[in-house]
Structure formats: structure tokens, C-alpha cells
């Protein structure tokens, strides 16, 4: 194996490794602001569900002292 072949394969391996560093290859964000949640936003409850939760709370009142 001559120097030229070694150099070619070294370059191919290096390029392969660098390709793995692309942002789209990772699920995690690369750039982030400290103290700010950068994940998927959560769904909020609607008013009906909130009212249902409030009513349901009274079940826990149950029993004597």
C-alpha cells in the first residue's frame, strides 16, 4: 500500500466521522440559552377539563375529620 492510498483512506474515514457531527444527526439541540427550556412545547388543558378537575377535587373532601 503506497502513501497515496493511505492518504485517500485516511481522508475518507475523517470525512465519515465529520458527517456524524451534523446537527440533524442528533436529537438534542446544539445551541441553547441558559435557563430556557428548548424542548417540545406541551399541550395546555382546556377550560372544560379545568372545571372538571375542580369539581373532581371535592371527592377528596370525603369522610369525617
Amino acid at each position, binding site marked *: 500500500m503506497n502513501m497515496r492510498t493511505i492518504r485517500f483512506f485516511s481522508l475518507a474515514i475523517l470525512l465519515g466521522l465529520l458527517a456524524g457531527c451534523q446537527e440533524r444527526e442528533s*436529537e*438534542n*439541540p446544539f445551541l*441553547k440559552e*441558559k*435557563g*430556557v*427550556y*428548548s*424542548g*417540545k*412545547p*406541551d*399541550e*395546555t*388543558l382546556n377550560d*372544560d*377539563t*379545568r372545571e*372538571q*378537575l*375542580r369539581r*373532581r*377535587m*371535592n*371527592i*377528596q*373532601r*370525603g*369522610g*369525617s*375529620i
Partner: protein
Amino acid sequence: MARMKFLCDAERCIECNACVTACKNEHEVPWGVNRRRVVTINDGKPGERSISVACMHCSDAPCMAVCPVDCFYQSAEGVVLHNKDLCIGCGYCFYACPFGAPQFPQVGNFGSRGKMDKCTFCAGGPEEANSDTEFKKYGRNRLAEGKLPLCAEMCATKALLAGDGDQVANIYRERVVGRGFGSGAWGWGKAYPGSGS
């Protein structure tokens, strides 16, 4: 609606551990992880008290403050939730939490930690509500179904209360007035400073 809160009435808790079992069963929590547990002090002695402990969803949550990847967020109802896609399993939240709530499943043969798992107030996570993905990662989303956390809803003695903070406080206040004494609403001062304990 005020923020969601937990309260354990130590005068009523009989250490039956049903809340622990219900939580594990409802969310299919894996072996080695307990989102809720019952702690007993002065066991077998006069003044014995039991308290059911899980994430208290603190108003100024220390876990959120120390997380290096900011995987925590607070829902509109004040429930402290986290994103398992962002969590790196560093364990900082566990050291910061005064209630020992964050849990880490063992993922390898050499004790390596997995993604953090904790009580979600039965509110799931950032995935689509009641989807299969959400259930697998975070457990059931009862809040989206209009139901409160199962641990509190099935508590036989109604020692564990969960729901709107104002309503929880009112129920506990009525009890304290009725029986003439309280047990100090354990953990409230630490979890919700300024709300009275």
C-alpha cells in the same frame, strides 16, 4: 385555577402503601423506580407518623434551577415536568431535590444511569396527550382526561390530597379546625414558600 399541589395529612396516613402501588400500576413504572413512597418517622414509637412523598411540583423548583440541559418546564397548572429527550441522566436534580423525587433506572450492567423519571402529577409529558409515546415515556396523562392523580383519588383515608392548591388548602383547613390540631402540612413550606404551611 390556582396551581396544582399535593398535601399529605400525616394524621390520616395509615402507611398502607396503596398510593405507591397505584402509581406503579397506573404508569407501569419499571423495576427499581418508585415515583412515590411512604416514609414513616418514629416507627413503632409514640408519635409515629407516616407521610406519602413524591415530587411536590415546587413553585420555585430546585431541579429546574440546576438542570444543565434545561429539560424541565412548568405547565400552566404549575406542574413541574421534564423532557426525556433532553435529559442526559446527570443526576443534578436528584441532589437538588429536597424530597428525593428524581429516580434513575439502571440501564447497563455496570450501574449506568438512564433518563430521569419522576412523578408527573399524572400529567404525562411534552408528547401528544394520551399517545402511546407519552405513555411509554412518562406514564398516563390523567389530567388531560379531567382526572386528578390516582394516588390521591384512591387514597382510602383521604390523607393524600392533590389538586387546585386553594381547594387543597381549604380541605386541610377545615380538617384542622374540626379536629383542633394539624400536623403542619409536611413539605408545604419547602415546596410552596409563601403559601403558608
